[in-house]
């Protein structure tokens, strides 16, 4: 494994961690939107506030980490991505700003009116942001970035749309599973049952999207399709199994286990994409090796990644444990 491969692996690990941690946060947007009027929706919104409060900023940092690793390790592909996918990136940026500020403001909103407005901003932007992130992934994975495709909007290709829908569905699925477990633990059986049904439905929908979504990939993203059916196949199978297991655990009300299998299902499909497009950093255009920055920087980045693992991991474990116990005490 070359240094460039190692940096790409670290970066992709960060993408995966972002997908599962921030994905669950983004996904709450849909359930917040659908929670109903102020009174009816209050328990759901309280649950979301409590679940996201301590962790969403830390979960969000993975994205910054990915962006920074991309420009540090792969400066030229990074510039190409930012030039060709500027529009979806702006939508993501807009969504992130609205989501974060909407969430922070809602909690301390002085009046119900203000809280509702902040809540709609938070929930709406949470719902749409993953779509644009998915279109970015789709554009890169389908071999449209850096390859001089001119007669189409590259982030609205079939693969991009699939990426967007899959990302949105995945986030809603993760959020539903996480929230079910949390509602159950806080003792709100009614809310937990409502969420369990939502988790069940989104699990099925997400699975269907993932399954039938691969059909247009064959023509629209042939390199990715080949990769997914060869190098990425074990991950895709793992994701399928974990997804089915999640349905099973949800049915049996084994909610903590369902949470774990849901994370595996999502992590595996993201990793499947990564393995599927290896050795390309920009599919059909630039390989990881060719796009990598200076070797001295790659080595230094690996040192920094080691440092991050040592410093950040224990702190992050502490945060998650604290968030878990704090919810228990309520």
């Amino acid at each position: 494994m070359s240094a460039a491969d190692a940096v790409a692996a670290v970066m992709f690990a960060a993408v995966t961690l972002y997908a599962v941690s921030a994905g669950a946060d983004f996904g709450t947007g849909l359930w917040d939107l659908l929670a109903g009027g102020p009174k009816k929706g209050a328990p759901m919104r309280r649950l979301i506030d409590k679940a996201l409060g301590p962790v969403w900023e830390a979960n969000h940092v993975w994205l910054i980490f990915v962006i920074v690793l991309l420009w540090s390790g792969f400066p030229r592909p990074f510039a190409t991505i930012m030039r060709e996918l500027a529009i979806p990136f702006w939508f993501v940026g807009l969504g992130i700003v609205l989501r974060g500020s909407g969430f922070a403001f809602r909690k301390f909103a002085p009046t119900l009116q203000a809280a509702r407005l902040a809540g709609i901003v938070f929930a709406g932007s949470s719902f749409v942001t993953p779509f644009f992130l998915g279109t970015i992934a789709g554009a890169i994975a389908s071999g449209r970035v850096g390859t001089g495709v001119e007669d189409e909007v590259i982030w609205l290709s079939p693969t991009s749309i699939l990426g967007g829908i899959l990302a949105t569905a995945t986030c809603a699925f993760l959020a539903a599973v996480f929230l079910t477990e949390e509602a159950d633990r806080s003792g709100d059986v009614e809310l937990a049952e409502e969420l369990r049904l939502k988790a069940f439905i989104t699990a099925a929908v997400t699975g269907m999207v993932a399954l039938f979504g691969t059909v247009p990939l064959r023509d629209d993203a042939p390199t990715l399709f080949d990769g997914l059916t060869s190098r990425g196949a074990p991950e895709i199978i793992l994701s399928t199994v974990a997804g089915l297991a999640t349905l099973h655990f949800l049915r049996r009300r084994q909610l903590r286990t369902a949470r774990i299998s849901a994370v595996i299902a999502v992590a595996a499909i993201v990793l499947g994409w990564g393995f599927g497009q290896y050795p390309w950093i920009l599919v059909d255009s630039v390989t990881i090796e060719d796009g990598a920055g200076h070797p001295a920087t790659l080595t230094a980045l690996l040192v920094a990644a080691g440092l991050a693992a040592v410093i950040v991991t224990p702190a992050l474990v502490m945060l998650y444990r604290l968030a878990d116990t704090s919810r228990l005490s309520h």
Partner: protein
Amino acid sequence: MTPDHLLIADALLPARNQMALSLGAHIILACFGVAMPAMLFVLHRMGANGDTDALELAKRWSKISGVLFAIGAVSGTILAFEMGLLWPGLMEQYGDVVGLAFTLEGISFFVEAIFLGMYVYSWGRLPAKTHQLLLLPMIISGMSGTFFIMSVNSWMNAPTGFDIVNGQIVNVDPWAAIFNEAVFLQYLHMLLAAYMVAAFTMVSVYSVGWLRGRRDRLHRLGILVPLVFAAIATPIQPIVGHFAGQAIADRQPIKLAAIEGLPVTESEVPIILGGYYDGSEVVGGIEVPIPGLASFLAQNSFDAEVIGLNEVPEEDQPPVNVVRFSFQIMVGIGSGLALLVTYVAYRWFRHRDSFLDNVWMLRAFTLTGVASIIAMETGWITTEVGRQPWVVHGILRTEDAVTDGNWVWFTLIGLTIVYLGMFAAGFGVLRSMSKRWAAGETDLESPYGPGRIHELVS
């Protein structure tokens, strides 16, 4: 260049303005992220030792920090995007030179975000003696994050850690790029500025409350604790600034020439306050009656030679007036604040906190927050506009780094609207929090919280 061309194709003007807006907005929030944990630590420690007022104040400030940190985190993300979206020409060439600094900053920010999450949500769940310790990693990561970000900015002023051979960037040494020769002073300058902005802003807010008659112990602490931080940082700042200026004289003499409004290289250069640079000289300013003062400040000798703008062709000169005005505003405010805290320190050692009874003193305090923010912003304008037309000093021109995207006017307008909304809403939320505290609320429950559910209809 036709107006039409300017609107559609030339992204340089809107891109620079958008960067200025994004940085100018984010840096205010960053100051609180960097400096609030230290002030919180003092309060929380007092609280852990039995001071219930201090503990209550720490609790309130942690909630304020939570809100400010949230909008700081998202506006920081916009900046990360903009590095590539607005300046792809910079990042594709030098992304791997400065990338390590950004990565280490990312780790610092990660640590801060994690511990902030733990700190803000641990009230009533951890004993105060343990709880306060969560602030220590935040204090350290605030300092290290500032260092790495300032390292990138100082690298743009003093680029190092690479060679250019036949137009190719080779021999990259990311550690050398981090520890460039400008980093130390720039870092100290910004770290002190962060503490000044956060401390003076808190002093201002609590002085307003004090003047409105809320003369309780909470407000007394709210003024005095940050005032101690400000009183330590503010007098050091001009000294650091002076040495940073001397370093500019060597490294970026044209930036200094713009600061002085000096058209041609000469010796015994005086300092002229105010006035307007008309393209050949400063007109209408007031000359400080110490001959050669600028020479002395720049080179430690009253008859030393100072480089003038004429040393480089006009297209390599920054816009003089913006740089000059900004610099003079920064120095003026900084000097005023240094005098103020020196006087306060004198009063404190003579008569303890009797200055809190002096209405004029309190009125002066209410202005310090906005003043310190203006000083910091004008400082940034001085160094950033003063580096123009270069984005990497002497190596890469800003116009060669900018995107060729045709959307920059739209994103500039869009971001302006979004940030205006975000800051207005943030201000409104913080104001309402303070009103609710003043009215005796402590928990600030959300409108759909269990304790307020009876207020809801439908």
